[in-house]
């Protein structure tokens, strides 16, 4: 009997922990929803900022975040996938490869502001791109690389060895096997990595602080060499600069809500793609 009670108390405690976590999440969403919804109108989504950031909308800011995120994925996905394929399928097992693996994992732990400084030194200064979308995307891309590499590696390793054998036994080369059997089977897992990294980089402030973002830009960015407004940095700027804290705070909440929705939307689309891919053959 006594054991039974101890067990019940234990499980109740675990349940409370879950409850607290979920509660935090809902409080955040509720808080953002209530405060952000006040400014969230059609005009807010489609217009450019007016009157020194105290009125108008945030359309160029949203677009800026989309550009930066897309640019980062375009850069990091092919590069990361290539690294993962090499590490999983081709590299001889040995200590050099282990060092590479450990380095990649460590890269994931580097604070994002360090990536920002690196981007400033390399892309902005050394390559002379200047503060622009290109520099910001590349910096965010490097931040996303370890995430994409490790999730792609996991996905590739999870493809059963028997499928590789089946393909090779039919006279396929190693590359044909990877391209036609291993990669398609690993695609859902690879997409998961992309989803996670999008969620991460869309909200990053520090890496774009010195490489891409600006508080105010007249109109929309014209090319990849333009400075850009982006949601995370915009929120930061609205809360720390300017002379109209009341109006600015409201807009900052609006931006936060949009950022949250944007990330959820992108994740939703990617999850749907992944499910479709999976159910097609495993369903």
């Amino acid at each position, binding site marked *: 009997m006594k054991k039974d009670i101890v067990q019940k108390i234990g499980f109740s405690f675990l349940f409370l922990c879950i409850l607290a976590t979920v509660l935090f999440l809902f409080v955040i969403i509720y808080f953002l929803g209530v405060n952000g919804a006040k400014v969230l109108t059609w005009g807010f989504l489609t217009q450019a900022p007016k009157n020194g950031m105290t009125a108008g909308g945030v359309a160029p800011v949203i677009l800026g975040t989309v550009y930066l995120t897309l640019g980062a994925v375009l850069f990091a996905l092919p590069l990361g996938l290539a690294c993962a394929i090499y590490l999983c399928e081709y590299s001889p097992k040995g200590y050099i490869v282990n060092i590479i693996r450990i380095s990649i994992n460590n890269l994931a732990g580097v604070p994002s502001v360090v990536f920002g400084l690196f981007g400033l030194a390399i892309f902005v200064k050394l390559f002379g791109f200047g503060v622009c979308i290109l520099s910001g995307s590349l910096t965010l891309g490097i931040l996303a690389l370890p995430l994409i590499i490790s999730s792609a590696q996991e996905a590739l390793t999870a493809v059963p060895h028997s499928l590789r*054998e089946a393909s090779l036994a039919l006279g396929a080369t190693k590359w044909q096997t990877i391209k036609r059997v291993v990669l398609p089977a690993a695609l859902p897992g690879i997409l998961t990595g992309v989803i996670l990294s999008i969620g991460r980089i869309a909200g990053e402030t520090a890496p774009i602080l010195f490489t891409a973002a600006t508080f105010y830009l007249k109109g929309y960015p014209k090319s990849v060499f333009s400075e850009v407004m982006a949601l995370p940095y915009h929120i930061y700027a609205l809360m720390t600069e300017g002379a109209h804290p009341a109006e600015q705070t409201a807009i900052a909440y609006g931006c936060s809500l949009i950022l949250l929705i944007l990330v959820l939307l992108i994740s939703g689309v990617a999850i749907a793609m992944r499910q479709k891919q999976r159910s097609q053959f495993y369903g």
Partner: protein
Amino acid sequence: MDKQLKMRAENVNFFYGKHQALKDINLDIPANHVVAIIGPSGCGKSTFIRLLNRMHELLAHASLTGRIYLDGKDIISSSIDSVDIRKRVGMVFQKPNPFPKSIFENVSYGLEVNGVKDRQFIEEKVVESLKKAALWDEVKERMHESALKLSGGQQQRLCIARCLAVSPEVLLFDEPCASLDPISTRKIEELILELKKDYTIVIVTHNMQQAARISDYTGFFLLGELIEFDKTEMIFKAPKDKRTEDYITGRFG
């Protein structure tokens, strides 16, 4: 051996690292016959047939000495591409391993990776292979459904059809019925008997009745050695070696 020889292993030794998995194997595989390899787990029988289409090359730290001939040509020498060998010597594995693709794509895969572009030829070959593998009637209405929706026995016949599509000369079966029910097993056995008209077949099996039912020759492996190799009826009725007799009468296994 009086029959025409398709494959031949000569003084084959095989090592995983320092462990010697096969010891001085000499074995002849006559054309258009079924050769069964029997023996207890870990005796090297699966290791042996994987040498016959050079699948052992996928293993790290493995080394091989000796010669393996296909139509009188040594296939181990490095000047021959393993891709070419595997086209001629197909393999069906222990567990059905269809690709997560449609039934059609599973069978057409081998042709496509070997550079066949003619769609009409591919389609004809797919149907022909599925018919030969005795699967066509069960799948002709659902060629574009996932192969993973088939039953285990159907999947294994699909894997056989997939092999046949690339027109191999030799078929290697590595315990093809190990994960199948008795009815599916019987279908595969009937199929193997049918296939030996056109192909040379080597089958590894745990099941001695299976070896007795379908094979013409049987080799008994024990601890990496080929103890005895003879006509199947001789092995089962009048084994020459005491160890073979002990194994087939179930005294160990």
